[in-house]
């Protein structure tokens, strides 16, 4: 209905491979970018720093995990641990006087190195066994962080993160922190968008579909799995560091516990495996829906004049939220991203029923 495709033609292959050949898509993205860039101007600081900012950071994390799960097709139940490695690496680096810019990159590399080292062992097994061995990464990391005093500063300790400084300028305003998160999220997004049309992206998809079939056509599946783990860990590490720098401002082992890993996994699955727009939806759903549900139930109870017990008020939203996830996955097993694509396809062929080849 809204899309217009007449008159779109390409005179070279670069244009033919463009990410967004349809003008309507480009307009939408431009508009969204404008909204995102001007958000601090019209949004109050509570919404900006407690909803929008974590959503962007978690979207980056979801995209990183999606690289392993959605593109390379490998289980990963320890993503929070990877982010934790990055977070601790960055905080320690900054505390020893290394500037934030370098510390963030360092966080990524530390996570990548540990990720590779671990993947080297874990990738000898496949499927559910791989899932279990990544879970082991989570527990090993949890234990190491909390028990090695040099890292965590003690079992119950909270490590204060110094304020972010970029190019020597301290960034403390909500808007400044928000922009850091926005830039990182956009960087990861554009990397993932372009991954689709690189040799690496195609190799990963081949490995996902069937690793020995990929091997038959000359794709070294073990190598590409390692690359996927390394890249994904790098993104996870940096995201962990940014999460601490812009949102938590302090780091404790609980922030990267196994629950958080499961939550990240849920974001990917609810959003849609291998879907970029879905990662945005998934992160928003898992992050914001409990809060929305809470307010909704309280509002409804008020409206109907019901007095719910404190216990019901605490559990009902959780139950509803769980039910919603199930409903969405029943309607479309490929997640929210696929639902979005279905709507888009519907409008693309409007008013006809399907695309005629």
């Amino acid at each position, binding site marked *: 209905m809204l899309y217009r495709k*007449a*008159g*779109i033609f390409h005179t070279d*292959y670069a244009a033919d491979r463009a990410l967004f050949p349809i003008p309507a898509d480009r307009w939408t993205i431009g508009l969204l970018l404008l909204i995102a860039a001007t958000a601090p101007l019209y949004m109050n600081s509570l919404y900006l720093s407690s909803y929008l900012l974590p959503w962007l950071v978690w979207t980056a994390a979801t995209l990183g995990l999606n690289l392993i799960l959605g593109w390379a097709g490998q289980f990963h139940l320890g993503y929070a641990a990877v982010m934790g490695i990055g977070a601790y690496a960055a905080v320690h680096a900054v505390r020893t006087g290394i500037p934030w810019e370098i510390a963030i990159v360092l966080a990524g590399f530390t996570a990548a190195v540990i990720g590779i080292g671990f993947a080297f062992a874990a990738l000898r097994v496949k499927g559910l066994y791989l899932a279990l061995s990544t879970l082991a990464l989570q527990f090993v990391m949890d234990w190491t962080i909390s028990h090695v005093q040099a890292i965590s500063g003690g079992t119950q300790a909270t490590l204060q993160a110094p304020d972010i400084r970029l190019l020597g300028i301290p960034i403390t305003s909500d808007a400044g922190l928000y922009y850091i998160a926005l830039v990182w999220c956009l960087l990861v997004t554009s990397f993932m968008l372009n991954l689709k049309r690189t040799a690496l992206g195609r190799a990963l998809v081949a490995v996902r579909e069937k690793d020995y079939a990929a091997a038959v056509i000359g794709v070294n599946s073990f190598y590409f799995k390692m690359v996927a783990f390394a890249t994904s860990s790098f993104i996870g590490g940096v995201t962990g560091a940014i999460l601490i720098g812009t949102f938590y401002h302090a780091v404790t082992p609980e922030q990267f516990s196994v629950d958080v890993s499961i939550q990240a996994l849920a974001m990917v699955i609810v959003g849609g495996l291998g879907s970029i727009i879905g990662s945005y939806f998934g992160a928003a759903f898992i992050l914001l829906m409990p809060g929305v549900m809470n307010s909704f139930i309280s509002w409804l109870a008020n409206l109907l004049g019901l007095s719910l017990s404190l216990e019901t008020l605490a559990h009902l939203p959780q139950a509803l939220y769980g039910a919603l996830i199930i409903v969405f996955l029943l309607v479309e097993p490929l997640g929210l991203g696929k639902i979005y694509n279905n709507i888009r396809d519907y409008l693309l062929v409007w008013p006809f029923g399907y695309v005629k080849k």
Partner: protein
Amino acid sequence: MSPVDAAPSPGEGWDFSDDSTLIRLLARNAESFPDRAAMREKSKGIWQEITWSELLDIVLSFAAGLESLGFEPGDTMLVVGDNRPRLYAGMLSAGALKGYAMPAFADATLDEINHFVHEAGARFALAEDQEQVDKMLELRAQGAAIEHIVYDDPRGLATYPQPGLISWDTVQIRGAERLVQDPSLREKLIRRAEPDGPAVFVHSSGSTGKPKGIVLTHRNFLAGVRNAYRGGAFGFDETILAYLPIAWVGDFAVTLGAGMALRFTINVPERQETVLHDLRETAPTFYLAAPRSWDNLLTTIQVRMEDSSRLKKAVYQFFMSSSLAAERRKLDGKQPSLGQKLLAPLGELLVCGPIKDQFGLSRLRGAFTGGEAIGEDTFIFYRALGIKLRQLYGQTESSAYNAIQGPDEVRLHTVGRPLPGVDVRISDAGEILIRSGSVFGGYFKQEEATREALDGEWLHSGDAGYLEPDGHLVVLGRLSDVVHTARGERYIPNYIENRLKFSPYIKDAAVLGRDRDSLAAIVCIDKEAVGLWAELRGISYMSYADLSQKPQVADLVAEAVRHVNGTLPAGQQIRRFVCLHKEFDADDGEITRTRKIRRNVVESRYAPIIDAIYDNRPTVLMKAQVSYETGEVGVIERTLAVQEA
């Protein structure tokens, strides 16, 4: 491509003089806009662009190469294949060398081509691919004088041992070498052709006898293009899709005539089968198609709508019916109602816009139908869609442009006003005579036919028609089909019958009136359409014969007849008609297998009806012969009412 550089820049444009040639105009385009796209061809997945300067280089080097093969002024090069940039370039090259480029239909049979080749003694052939090369070789084996066969696509031809076979690339390279060795050759080749020299050698359609060869000069085409430009058919810098058969004069007049003069961007589809797809990608601003193509497109849209979901169908029906009703009111000279006006923008957003977009019709400024009459439903559908479909009347002999309709003064039965620069006169015999710079100089080597067709400056079009008081031209049909009434009124039965048949309720009709005082018709209702119409209104009927004699059905048909009468001059209106109690059937010999009416059979078999009509009797008892599929012959007896229209 962007609107900024599409603006015509004065001084760089064509000055509308017909004292030029296509190659000179091409050279001027190459000088003014060397880097702008002249042609695009969908190949290997993308649109490969040829700029104006590249196109000029291709044309000149091919011309130089062709000359080195021995192509001399007056030589003929047969061009056979689908639309390909190189075939177009080859035609320009032949014209630049003062030779005849003779395009032939890609699916032409050997016999047809044989006739062409012998007529002009063609020594050269430009073939698209192996299939066409094989045809040329067979022609040669049958004794044709083709010496050199140049082929565009070398696939499958590498091992052909036959002499005289040469690839386009070789000829072009050879020519390019000549151009390097002799720097003055470029300018000489651009200057060589004269405005009165041949631009192309095409053939008349041949619907009446063998196709006649027609040589059109550069001056003819440029005059035609100028007339059409002044008449508002197209402007500078249009985007077109060159998909029409290259042997049809319309393709040459649009693609190369107007294309060179008004520097169109010429898009060449990948294959005939991908035209619809390529149409969407290129979204042309000017599109000329035969009524049949518009019909086919309409059917495609309707079938795909049928396949759509219920919601989409409902939305489509709602907005389309409002838009169609508004368009019918406009055609009747009334304003659309307020509700229709209010719905129109929403309909454009929800239905018309998306449909136009799906078929690449959204940027159309000039949408034309030509060649024959277009059905009312088809015509109104496209107008309702927001495409200002217009009729164009033209002929091979006058370089395709005679008359067009204005975008907003459209009536179904006229073809619009004659273009500026085209004089139209109606001869005493009712024939349309045309005088214009675009009229040809005579048939190729057929002096008798030339004498018949050309009367001084006036071209006998062979079409019967008349001018309406406000200057709109009405084309009735071929003059050879004209019939006279006793009062001397001229009419073409076929023309009126076709218009009657545009009504969904009328399946067949026979218009009577030869040597009678007034016109009358025998009408066969459409069983499906009228049957459904009757069911919806609770009119019960037993059989076709019963249905045909219902008074309500008579009123329905009378309305359709009156509607047609409204578009006809007074003397040609149908006064009375009879609904026949059976359909015309090829088994009974009333129509041919291709559904063309056999007038003498109808007139003799239904003589009692005809007598009753002209004796002013209200009813007639008719015995009709019916052939059953078993071969038995039965008789249906029925009293038929004669209706006043």
